[in-house]
C-alpha cells in the first residue's frame, strides 16, 4: 500500500492548562469568588493571543472546582473557543483539596493525554486550609508521569490560605506560591500564570536547560482586603 506522505496524522503540539479552583464557603466572603471569576474572564484574551502568536501550539483549558467534592467544570476546551463560566462558592462547602488531586491524578493517567505534548501547567487556587487528608492523593498525583513533569503554580487568596499545602503541591523549591491579598494582586497572579508561566511551559524556544519561570514582581502596593 502506498500513500502520498509518510507518517501518521500530524497535529499542533497540545499545551494543557489546568485550573483547580477552591469553591468552598469561605470563597464567598469579601467577594473572593466574584474577583476570581472576573480575573479568569479577563485573562482569556491574553491566552488566546499567546496561541495566535504561536501557530505550532494548541492551548487547551481545563477547570475543576473543589469544595466538599471536586468536579470538572470544563475539560480539553481549545482556548480559542473558551468562555469562562462563573463559579459559585458552595454554602457549607469544605476545602477538600485531596479530591481535586484525585481528579488531577486520574486525568494525568488518562489515555487522552498526548504522549508528545508539552508538560501540562497546573494551577491550584485556594483561600483556606485543607479540610481532608490530602497527602496520599497529592502523592498519587505527583507520582504520575505527567503530574511529575507538569509545571505547577499556586495562588493563595488571602492570609488564611495554607501555604504549606501549596508548597507541597508545587514540589519545586524554585517556585513559590503567589500571595494575593486583594483583587489587583489576584488579577496579576492569574495573568502571570496564564501568560508568563504558560508561555514558559509551551512556547517553542528551541531548547535549553529546564528553568522555572521568573516569579511575578512584588505585589502591587494596596490595602489587603483578604
Amino acid at each position, binding site marked *: 500500500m502506498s500513500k502520498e506522505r509518510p507518517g501518521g*496524522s500530524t*497535529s499542533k503540539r497540545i499545551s494543557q492548562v489546568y485550573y483547580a479552583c477552591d469553591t468552598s464557603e469561605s470563597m464567598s466572603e469579601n467577594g473572593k469568588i466574584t474577583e476570581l471569576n472576573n480575573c479568569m474572564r479577563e485573562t482569556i484574551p491574553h491566552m488566546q493571543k499567546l496561541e495566535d502568536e504561536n501557530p505550532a501550539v494548541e492551548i487547551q483549558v481545563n477547570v475543576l472546582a473543589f469544595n466538599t467534592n471536586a468536579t470538572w467544570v470544563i475539560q480539553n476546551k481549545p482556548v480559542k473557543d473558551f468562555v469562562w463560566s462563573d463559579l459559585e462558592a458552595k454554602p457549607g462547602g469544605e476545602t477538600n483539596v485531596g479530591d481535586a488531586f484525585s481528579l488531577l491524578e486520574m486525568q494525568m493517567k488518562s489515555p487522552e493525554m498526548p*504522549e508528545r505534548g508539552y508538560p501540562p501547567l497546573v494551577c491550584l487556587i485556594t483561600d483556606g486550609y485543607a479540610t481532608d487528608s490530602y497527602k496520599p492523593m497529592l502523592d498519587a498525583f505527583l507520582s504520575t508521569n505527567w503530574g511529575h513533569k507538569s509545571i505547577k503554580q499556586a495562588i493563595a487568596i488571602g492570609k488564611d490560605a495554607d501555604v504549606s499545602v501549596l508548597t507541597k503541591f508545587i514540589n519545586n523549591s524554585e517556585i513559590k506560591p503567589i500571595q494575593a491579598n486583594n483583587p489587583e494582586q489576584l488579577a496579576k497572579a492569574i495573568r502571570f500564570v496564564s501568560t508568563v508561566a504558560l508561555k*514558559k511551559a*509551551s512556547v*517553542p524556544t*528551541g531548547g535549553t536547560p529546564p528553568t522555572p519561570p521568573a516569579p511575578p514582581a512584588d505585589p502591587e502596593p494596596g490595602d489587603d482586603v483578604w
Partner: protein
Amino acid sequence: MKIKHSIARSMRGISHSKSGLPNQDSLLLKTNGCHQLVAAVADGHGSSNCFRSDSGSRFATEIFASIANDLPVFTSYHEAKTYAESLPVKLVNEWKKRVDNDLVISPYANHEINESNADNPYLPYGCTFLGCYISSKYAICLQIGDGEMFALYSNGETKYLVPGDDRLNGNATTSLCLPDAEKDFRISVIDLEGEILPEIIILATDGLGQSYANDSELLKWGVDLKDIYNAKSGVETLETNLAVWLDDISFGASADDISMVAFWLEKEESNLHPDKLNTARDENAKSTLLKEEKKRKGPFWFFRNKKNKIFDINN
C-alpha cells in the same frame, strides 16, 4: 550488511522564515562504497540566548564526519561498543575547541554579552546532535538532546535506536553546550549480522517529532517509506518528495526546521565480505575470493556500482 540507498533533506521551518532566522539545523550524509556510512543531524536551539546555534549545529556535524573518518572497521561488538563509548568525549571536546576558535575570530560583541553566556560561553552555539556510523557489521548510534532516531526492522517493528531521556520535557533539552554534555549522550551499538535487522534507519531533528501527538503516528514513517519505495521502485521519487513532505509537515504542525536522513540496509549477498578478504591468509586465497565474487556479479558489474555519496547541508 550493505547500504542500499540513502536520502537526506533539511528544510527551514515557517517560524524561522517569519522571524528571518536561518535554518538552525545541519545535516550530514556520507557513504563510502556500500559498507560505510556516516549520517548526522544537529538542531541549533535558535532561542535568543542561542544566537549562534546555526554555527554550533554545523560544527557538530562536521566534527562527527571528521571523527568517523578515523574510525576502523570493527571486528567485534565489544570493539564497536568501546569506540562508541569514547565518542561523546571526543565530540564534545572537539566541538568546544571549534567554538573557542570561532570566538577568537568573532568574539561576542558587547551587546551580545549577557549573564548566561558570561557564565557559559558555549551557550550561544547550543545544539542537539544525532549521529549514526555504519561500518559493515555494526552500527553505532549516539544522541544528545531531543530529535528522533529510529529504524524499521526486518520483523516489521519500528523502534527507537537509543534509550529515551526523561529530561527532554517540552522545551527543555540536554545540549552540547551544557557542562558535562558528554554524560548526557545516549548510545547504542547494533549488530548488523543478527537475526532481526534494521531495514531503514531514520534520523531527524525534533521539528519532525514535535509534529506528532503520539509515537505511533511518528513511527509510521518507517513502514510508509518502505511501502512508497517498493511501490515506486526507486529512491529518486523519495528524494524529490522528501523536501515537499518535510515542508508540509513543518507548515501544518511544528513550524520548526526539520532535517532528515534515511537510509536502506540490506543483507550482504556477497561472499566477499571485507572482513573475509582482510583475513584471507595468503594471496592465493584472496585471489580465489575475488574470482568467485567477479563470477557472482557477472560482467560489467562496475558500471552498476553506485558512486560514493556526500551530502553535507550546513544551514
